[in-house]
């Protein structure tokens, strides 16, 4: 009997370590599989994170590019002793736990060119991941061609006696691509430089040949759709359009002496109330016989015919035009993007 008990105890003593060894092996196997999955998951997560960071930096770059002109106009660069500047641009979040910061600077643009800026977008996540994108951008002015006369009409001009054109800076009061009729207009140019015999220089050979799209690009070096989009984010550009043309009934005022504005009318314009513009009024159609009052400090360009029954005063102001020629939107410089 004692020998039987001993045998059974010995059997227990053999089986128990074997069971423990088996359990240990199973645990190690489970751990190994878990580690494999964790490792693969970590790699996949890192890859996704890198993509998210790059996308966030791209969003930051686009946002900064769109807002560069108004931001830099309101916060002009302050240069250090080496002629460098660095200004914080828009910042925001993009995706889960990823944010971006942007900067405007001229670190690789020395000597400084006031029309060019380098935009840097940096995306960061909570785990310390960082991706950068950089892009140089050039200022594209609102006015590609500065009008040299207070009134320019690509077609004919028919204006009433209450027309006052002033040009203290030159001898041209109006350019017209068609017949010019302004009986009794008050013309104010230096007598010595006044175009004989009327003081109005008709230049019919070129203006009339412009199609509407060509005229638009001639003055603004942009397509209409582009400028329309930009007007949503740039306060110095106004865009008005309506089915059948724009009709101004009440009093409308655009721009000021300190902040001249480019006002685009996308079609015909009829002024029944009062319209005052400090800057440039561009009518991408015709001015159609309203009886309201138009006052322009800057210049007016009409892509079609200029017909108006009410009083009109256009005072050519080179300062307002120069300001619009120095402001604009920033466009990418081809070949200047990098992410290192």
């Amino acid at each position: 009997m004692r020998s039987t008990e001993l045998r059974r105890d010995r059997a227990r003593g053999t089986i128990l370590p074997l069971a423990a060894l088996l359990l240990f092996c199973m645990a190690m196997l489970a751990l190994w599989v878990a580690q494999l999955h964790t490792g693969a998951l970590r790699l996949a997560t890192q890859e996704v994170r890198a993509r998210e960071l790059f996308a966030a930096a791209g969003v930051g770059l686009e946002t900064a590019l769109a807002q560069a002109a108004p931001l830099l106009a309101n916060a002009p660069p302050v240069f250090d002793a080496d002629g460098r500047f660095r200004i914080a641009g828009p910042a925001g979040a993009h995706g889960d736990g990823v944010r971006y910061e942007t900067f405007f600077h001229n670190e690789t643009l020395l000597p400084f060119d006031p029309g060019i800026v380098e935009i840097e977008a940096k995306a960061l996540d909570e785990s310390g991941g960082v991706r950068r994108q950089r892009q140089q951008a050039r200022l594209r002015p609102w006015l590609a061609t500065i009008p040299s006369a207070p009134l320019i009409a690509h077609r004919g001009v028919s204006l009433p006696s209450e027309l006052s054109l002033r040009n203290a800076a030159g001898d041209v009061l109006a350019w017209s691509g068609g017949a010019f009729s302004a009986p009794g207009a008050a013309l104010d140019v230096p007598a010595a430089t006044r175009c004989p015999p009327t003081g109005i220089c008709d230049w019919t050979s070129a203006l009339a040949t412009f199609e509407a799209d060509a005229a638009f690009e001639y003055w603004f070096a942009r397509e209409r759709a582009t400028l329309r989009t930009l007007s949503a984010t740039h306060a110095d550009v106004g865009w008005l359009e309506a089915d059948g043309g724009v009709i101004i009934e009440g009093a409308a005022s655009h721009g000021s002496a300190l902040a001249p504005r480019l006002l685009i009318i996308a079609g015909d314009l009829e002024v029944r109330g009062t319209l005052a513009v400090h800057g440039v009024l561009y009518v991408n159609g015709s001015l159609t016989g309203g009886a309201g009052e138009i006052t322009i400090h800057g210049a007016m360009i009409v892509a079609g015919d200029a017909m108006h029954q009410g009083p009109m005063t256009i005072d050519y102001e080179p300062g307002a035009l120069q300001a619009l020629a120095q402001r604009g939107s920033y466009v990418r410089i081809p070949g200047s993007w990098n992410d290192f």
Partner: protein
Amino acid sequence: MLIERTLRGHTLSELLIASTIGIFLLGGLLHVFALHTGEARRRLAEAQLHQTLGAAAALITGELRRAGYWSRAREATGGAVNGFADIHVEDDCVLYSYDRDADSSEGIPGSDDRFGLRLRAGALQMKSSDSCGPGGCTDCNSGVWWATTDPASVTVTRLVFAADVHPRSLPDGTSVTARSVRYVLEGALTQNPSIIATIAGAAGVRNDEID
């Protein structure tokens, strides 16, 4: 009598039956473990393959995006020529350049600005420099190349590049050509060539070429 019966133990036939059942159970268990282990190994191998090819694809995309960068690109719109703009595409090779150290004042790539990607000896290789002249590099066999993948673990079996060009005008009227490069990357595990993976992608070149 009862005590004696309890302490008597098992008969030989009981032990044989129990042992047989135990062996079958243990065998089944080991078989299941073996299956799991094999599956885990296969999944690990596939994951390694995908990871290797994914990293290679990310390298291709990231590199080609940079093609054409010149630190003084602003001068190109004034008439200077951006010598970094060319991208040379062959079936299994693409050559490009960018101003890595932002030190090119003339728009001519230096030897350390010339890069390339190609398939050779079962590996994705990258060119890190080439002293070919300013006339451009179109020889996929010149320059210093190094492997970015390890053929001992993953064999890249196929690499195909194809370029797409899209002429367009910028808002300022400048005519440019936007470019993208499509690629197909195929690889297999060197130890187990039956495990293969394919990645198809496209890299949009961020630096347009001025016409």
